[in-house]
């Protein structure tokens, strides 16, 4: 187990592994035809080209726009929707199975329908992202709001908080950590939605960049873009985890 490794060996192995991976990549680039695969250095130079000719940044901006707006809307609707459902038990009971169904369903299946409704607009892609990202936030917020410790409520009531203040000062702060867990899960799903939407609805963003370059057999660009997406996703999910952990500190008493 990694406990027995002193602090240096582990990261050293990781570094060696990454270097070996790059070397293998480079080697494969020489043996596999260029229409299918290019080597590590060729990918990096494609990446550089994409950066310098601005294509990458344009695509990145377009994708991130869709992602950010979609995530924001998902959060607002998901968080307050979750609180609402916690507040109104009848509403929650009524909607629960439908929320679960939407959460379990592959949202990609609905993309063509959204396309037909909204056309090839940024709006359509945002709606897709919201469709993917709203459920974990909703479900987690709901679970959090319902699990508010009755004692906390007693304390708040004993200070004669009226309901609005109860919500503001007790329930919402208590629920935020749960919501952040939902946000972390939502980030991953929003990314999938974003890419799927860009594949199917096309015309802008990183997904579109991949599709266009695939059609033109510009393998270097394809690999470079995939690399960028990988890094981007890792960063975003890292932020999601950091957010979750930051808010989770409040939950120490569980």
């Amino acid at each position: 187990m990694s406990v027995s490794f002193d602090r240096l060996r582990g990261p050293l192995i990781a570094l060696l592994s990454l270097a070996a991976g790059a070397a293998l990549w480079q080697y494969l680039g020489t043996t596999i035809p260029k229409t299918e695969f290019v080597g590590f250095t060729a990918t990096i130079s494609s990446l550089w080209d994409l950066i310098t000719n601005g294509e990458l940044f344009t695509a990145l901006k377009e994708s991130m726009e869709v992602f950010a707006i979609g995530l924001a809307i998902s959060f607002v609707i998901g968080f307050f929707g979750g609180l609402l459902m916690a507040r109104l038990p009848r509403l929650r009971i009524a909607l629960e199975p439908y929320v679960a169904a939407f959460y379990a369903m592959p949202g990609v299946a609905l993309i063509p329908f959204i396309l037909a409704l909204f056309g090839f607009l940024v709006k359509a892609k945002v709606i897709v992202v919201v469709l993917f990202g709203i459920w974990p936030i909703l479900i987690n917020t709901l679970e959090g709001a319902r699990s508010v410790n009755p004692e906390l409520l007693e304390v708040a009531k004993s200070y004669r908080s009226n309901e609005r203040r109860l919500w503001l000062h007790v329930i919402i702060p208590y629920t935020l950590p749960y919501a952040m867990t939902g946000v972390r899960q939502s980030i991953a799903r929003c990314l999938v939605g974003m890419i799927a939407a860009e594949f199917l609805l096309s015309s802008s963003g990183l997904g579109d960049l991949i599709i266009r370059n695939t059609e033109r057999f510009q393998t270097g660009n394809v690999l470079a873009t995939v690399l960028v997406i990988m890094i981007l996703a890792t960063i975003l999910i890292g932020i999601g985890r950091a957010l979750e952990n930051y808010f989770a500190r409040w939950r120490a008493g569980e």
Partner: protein
Amino acid sequence: MTAVTVRMPRTRELSPRWEVFMLRLGAGLVLLGLWEGLVTWLSPSYITRPSGIARVFWEVVSNRSTPLTQLSGSFWFDVQTTLVAVFEGLAIGVTLGVIVGLAMGRLATVEWALKYYVGALFAMPVIAILPLMTLWFGYTSTARLWIVVIGAFLPVALNVYEGVRKLPVTYLEVARTYHARWWNVWFGIALPASLPYLLAGLRLAAGRALVAAVVAEYLLAIKGLGFFIRSDTQSFHQNQAMVAVIMLALIGIAINTTIDAATRHFLPWFRREGR
């Protein structure tokens, strides 16, 4: 991290069962009504709506090809194709995931060598690799298989890895004290102990496998529910396509329910704070 499953919280503290049923039925009807109303009022006739779906439901489900369309009446064939692709990919992906996860959990060298690869791939939407797959395998079902395998592999590997890492030290002390050999430890202790994590990973894997299969079929135009949806929506037969969507939703729910039921049945001994 990856092992948290999101499940709807339990309901029935206050309402009797019939009230629960009526509330849900009522909500469903309201939602359907809204859908029907808004679409009829605001959008063109080819946009799907409940009445339209109801109208074509039987003919889709009975595999009949209809006049005026080139629909092949292949609904159940497509369902089968997608399901087979999903289960094939799951079988391969889960098996590989378990082995790699066990190795990562038990062997520090493997852990450090692989964890950044697996982590980065897991973070990323796996369908981003799909176009790459088409460069390598063409627009074939092999490309779909690979993307499903990768989609299934990653959550399982990561979850099993986490489960093995969280193995209570006492179990290992027991194993060493009583002279268990390494395969006893891997398969007799690490694997059963990480079963809850494995099942959580399986839930994720099944969902991702389904998404991967559908997207692959849609983009690559290969036979399956994804293609069914694509060709029907492109020919303005949205109501027919919606039947496929409903089917997909049912499949997704069925898989989750099965895994949950399996968890409850086969792991009655699992308590969060294992000793």
